[in-house]
């Protein structure tokens, strides 16, 4: 997780610098600190916020994008063998020790809300559920627009 959070700090700077060229404002950054000259601070604050919005609150939210990517990595490296419905959820068992065959993992990632993916170690019969998104995330996902509004209104996001 520390590397992941560092990569998000870096993304904020990366996206900011991508967007800043049109504004011709001088800037230097250190981790989560952004410096410029007094006459450009208003624009700088707006641009830092926009970069943050681009990271977290665009489309379906970054955590869901990340989750789909991680599930895809697991499924594409294994061979899902069993698909059945359990508790109204599609249950996919991925044996850890089998070789991969063709499997349409898009069907999982398209509708991950109704899919429970289970990883099974066929040597020890250990079963591990691929973790679902942190609880309530999908409901909170509806709040993305209010987060954008709330962030743009925040006076002390950086300061």
């Amino acid at each position, binding site marked *: 997780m520390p590397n992941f959070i560092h990569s998000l700090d870096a993304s904020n700077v990366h996206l900011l610098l991508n967007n800043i060229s049109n504004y011709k404002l001088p800037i230097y950054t250190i981790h989560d600190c952004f410096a410029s*000259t007094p006459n450009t601070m208003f624009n700088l604050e707006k641009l830092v916020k926009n970069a943050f919005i681009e990271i977290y609150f665009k489309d379906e939210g970054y955590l869901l994008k990340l989750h789909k990517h991680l599930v895809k*990595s697991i499924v594409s490296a294994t061979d899902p063998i069993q698909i059945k419905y359990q508790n109204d959820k599609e249950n996919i068992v991925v044996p850890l020790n089998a070789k991969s065959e063709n499997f349409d993992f898009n069907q999982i990632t398209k509708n991950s809300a109704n899919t429970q993916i289970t990883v099974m170690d066929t040597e020890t019969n250990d079963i591990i559920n691929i973790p679902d998104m942190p609880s309530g995330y999908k409901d909170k996902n509806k709040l993305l627009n209010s987060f954008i509004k709330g962030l743009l209104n925040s006076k002390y996001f950086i300061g």
Partner: protein
Amino acid sequence: MQAKLLLIHNPTTKISNPILFDASCSGIQHIASLTLEQELAKNVNVYTESSDPSFDYPQDFYIYALGKIRDSLSVSEIETLRDIKLNRKIIKRSVMTIPYNISLTGIGEHLLEHFEVIWVFKERFVKIPGSASYSGKDLYLNTSEFGNLTKLIYFVLTKELPSLKILSEYFNSMIDIFVRLNLPITWITPAGLKIRYTNVKFTTTKVKANLLATGK
């Protein structure tokens, strides 16, 4: 100050000193935004519900975390710990580094930057000055008590903040599967950079060797 002095002498002085904007606890801002936790987001100024933000006051996450630590200290089974009155400055570094996997040892080291270590004969004590105790008296924590103080802070910061806890559990479960599959963990940052991260399990082998020759 320098700019102000320059302005007094010449109001048309061009000031080119940079101004620095610092995020308010960026690690927690990332956690709150990832998990879309409104309460946490409010505490780190990512989010405001106010219709007129000009009346908003800055939120201070360190004070919020300090409150939680103080609550936990006040019900500690150890009498000496109940008398400790930590302040924002003492816990700031530990709080700041929560999202970057602060360890128990790390918290102990951060605390020792503020307190003095005293040796009485061969026993080690950490002196908590009267300014950091409710009774106003200096407190002397032995190794076990200081260990318990460190653990209490660690527990509050890593287990009692709901978003951090659920996010850590999510990542730990995912990493467990990747390690079992012997797969590198990859992710694409929001800026489009692909990161590949491999966990390698090390085994420990202990050996004994004499560095100084003892024979003739």
